[in-house]
C-alpha cells in the first residue's frame, strides 16, 4: 500500500520539479492593458486591530483605481515564519505588487529581494526591512517618534521619576522607537528606566504586565508603550492610578481616545493608519505605471494627541473612516 502513495508523492514531486526554468522568463513586465492588478497587502498579523484601517485604506484606494484587487493576508498571530511563507507564496503566485509590514525585517530581506528579482515590486509600510531592495517605505520615522514620546514623558514628569517601558522584541520599528525613547530620556538625569517589558505583541500579556508592574513599582511615574497594546483594550490600564502614573502610548484607535478623555492616558501618538494601506497601493500602482517613488523613506509623520486636541482628532478620524 505504501507503493501507491509513494507513486502519488513521486508524481507530485515530479510536477513540482519540472519546468522550474519557465518562471524566470515570464516574471517581469507591466500587465497587459485592461488586466486587473493583484496586490498582496501583508500586515504583521490579522489579530492586531490597527491594521484593519490599513485594510480599509488599501481597499478604498483599489476601488478608486477600479482595476486593482487587494489580497489581504497575514498570519493569524505574529508568527514570523508564517509571514515569510505568505510572502513567498505571493511571489510564486506572481502577484503584481507586494506591500508588507515586516514582523522581522532581516528575516524577510532575502525573500523581498527575491520578489524584486522576479520583477514584483515591493514596498514596506509600518515596519521596514531596511536592508532589502524594497522600492520604498511608508510609515513613521520611528526614532523621531520615540524621541517625541520620551520628551513628552520628561515634560509630564517634570524631569524626574521612574519609567517603565513596554515593547515587543523583534520588530525593527519598535526597536527604533525604543532607541528614540531611551535617547530622549537619557537627557533627563532625574528619570530612571526601571524595566523594559517584552509583551510579544500580545494585548492580554500587556494587561497582565501592567497589573503586576503597577504592584511592583507603586511609585512609578509613567508607563511608556512603543506600541498600542495598553490602549487597545479598556482593562489593560484599569490597574493604574492615573493621579500617580501617566500613560504615554503609541496608537490612537478606540478605545484609546476614550481613555484619553477619561484621563487614564495622557499622551497618544497617532499613525497614518489608513495611509498605510492607501499610500502603499498608490506607490505600487505608480511603480507598475513606471513612476518610481521620489524617495525611499517616506515619513508619514505622527499626530500627537492630548486632552486638548482629542475632539478635533476624533472628528477628523470619523471623516476618514466614512471615506469623505
Amino acid at each position, binding site marked *: 500500500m*505504501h507503493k501507491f*502513495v509513494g507513486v502519488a508523492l513521486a508524481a507530485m514531486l515530479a510536477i*513540482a520539479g519540472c519546468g522550474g526554468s*519557465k*518562471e524566470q522568463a515570464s516574471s517581469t513586465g507591466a500587465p497587459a492593458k485592461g488586466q486587473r492588478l493583484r496586490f498582496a497587502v501583508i500586515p504583521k498579523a490579522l489579530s492586531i486591530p490597527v491594521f484593519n484601517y490599513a485594510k480599509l485604506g488599501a481597499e478604498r484606494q483599489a476601488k478608486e483605481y477600479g482595476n486593482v484587487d487587494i489580497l489581504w493576508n497575514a498570519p493569524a498571530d505574529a508568527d514570523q515564519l508564517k509571514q515569510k*511563507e505568505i510572502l513567498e507564496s505571493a511571489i510564486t503566485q506572481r502577484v503584481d505588487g507586494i506591500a508588507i509590514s515586516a514582523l522581522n525585517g532581516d528575516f524577510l530581506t532575502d525573500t523581498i529581494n527575491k520578489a524584486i528579482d522576479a520583477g514584483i515590486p515591493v514596498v514596506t509600510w509600518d515596519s521596514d526591512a531596511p536592508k532589502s531592495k524594497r522600492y520604498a517605505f511608508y510609515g513613521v520615522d520611528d526614532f523621531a517618534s520615540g524621541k517625541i514620546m520620551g520628551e513628552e514623558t520628561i515634560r509630564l514628569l517634570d524631569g524626574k521619576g521612574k519609567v517603565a517601558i513596554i515593547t515587543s522584541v*523583534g520588530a525593527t520599528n519598535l526597536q527604533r522607537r525604543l532607541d528614540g525613547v531611551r535617547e530622549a530620556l537619557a537627557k533627563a538625569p532625574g528619570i530612571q528606566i526601571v524595566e523594559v517589558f517584552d509583551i510579544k505583541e500580545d494585548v492580554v500579556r500587556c494587561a497582565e504586565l501592567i497589573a503586576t508592574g503597577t504592584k511592583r513599582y507603586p511609585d512609578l511615574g509613567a508607563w511608556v508603550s512603543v506600541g498600542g497594546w495598553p490602549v487597545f483594550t479598556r482593562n489593560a490600564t484599569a490597574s493604574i492610578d492615573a493621579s500617580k502614573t501617566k500613560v504615554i502610548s503609541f496608537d490612537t484607535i478606540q478605545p484609546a481616545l476614550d481613555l484619553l478623555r477619561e484621563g487614564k492616558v495622557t499622551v497618544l501618538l497617532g499613525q497614518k493608519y489608513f495611509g498605510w494601506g492607501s499610500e502603499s497601493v498608490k506607490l505600487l500602482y505608480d511603480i507598475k505605471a513606471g513612476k518610481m517613488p521620489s524617495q525611499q523613506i517616506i515619513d508619514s509623520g505622527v499626530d500627537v494627541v492630548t486632552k486638548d486636541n482629542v475632539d478635533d482628532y476624533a472628528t477628523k478620524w470619523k471623516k476618514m473612516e466614512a471615506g469623505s
Partner: protein
Amino acid sequence: MNLKKIWEVREFSTVVILALEILFFTWYLWPDGSRSHPFFNAPNFVLIFKYSAIYGIAAVGAAIVIISGGIDLAPGAVMALSGVVASQLFVERGWGLGTSMTTGVLVGLVSGLVTSVLVVVVKLPPFIATLGVMGITRGLAFIITEGRYFDVSSQLLGGWRPFGLPADWVAPIIMILLALVFQFLMTTFQWGRAVFSVGGNETAALFSGIAVNRIKTSVYVISGVLAAVSGVVLVLVQGQGKADLATGYELDIIASAVVGGASLAGGRGSVIGAVLGTLIFGVLRNALPQIPGATFYDRLIVGLVVIVIVVVDQLLLKKRG
C-alpha cells in the same frame, strides 16, 4: 492492486481529499487572459512542499507516537530549541555546519530521552510529560537567545546548494525520504508491528512478549529526533535560529497526523498519511490567501477539514469492517 483494494488503503481518503483540494484551487484560481496560473505552477508546488516539510518531518514522529497510543506536545518547542542550538554553535561559536546541525539533532534525542524517562519510569501520562518537556525546551531556547536571533543566512550566503540541489528542495527531500523509511519500518519490521500492538492494546502486547517500555522509549526518542531535524532544516532553509519560531506548531503537527489516519486512541495510523496531512494544510495555507477576503476563513476551513476527513475516515473504517 485492483480498485477495491485501493479503496481499502488507509491513506486513500487523504489522497482523495488532497487531489480534490488541488483540483478545486486549480479551477477556482484559473487566471484570466494570458496570465500564468497563480496556484498550479512548479515553483508554487515546491513552495508548498518546502513549508509543509517543516511540519511534515515532525509529523512522521508524531504519527508514530500517536499510533503507539501516546501523544507528543513538544515538537514545536523542540524545533525551536534544536534550531537555536544549531545556529548558535554555527554562528557564534564558529563550529562547522555539519557538527552544529548534528548537535542540534542531538538536542532532540536528549529531549526524547527525557520524555521517555518521564513516561516509562516516572509513569506520567504522555500529555503531562510532553507538556512539561515543551515548556522546558521552549524556555531553554529563550534562555539561550535572550530575545536575539542567530542569523545563519548571512554565513551560508545566497548560493548554498547542498549536494548541488537548490536549498528549497532540502526540506521536501528529507521529508519524503524519512516518510518512506519510517513507513517501511512501521509496516514490515517487527518493531513497527510492535508499535501498533502497544497502541492497540498495551496489556495484550505485554502478554504477547513485546518489550512495551522499550517500544515506548523508542517512539518518544524518534519523535524528539525528527522534531529536531525539522528545527535544523528550518534554520538551514529559513536562515534564522530564533526562540519563538514554530510556536504552537505541535497542534498543526498532531492535526496532520490525525487527518492522515492516525487514531488518538492508538493502534492505527500511517506515517505517509501524516505527511499527506501536512500537504493538505500546506495547500490550504498557500491557496486560500489568493482569494480576496478569504484570509479570515483560513482557520475555520482548517477546522472543518480536520473534522470532515476524520469522519469520512471512520465511515470508511466501519465499511471495511
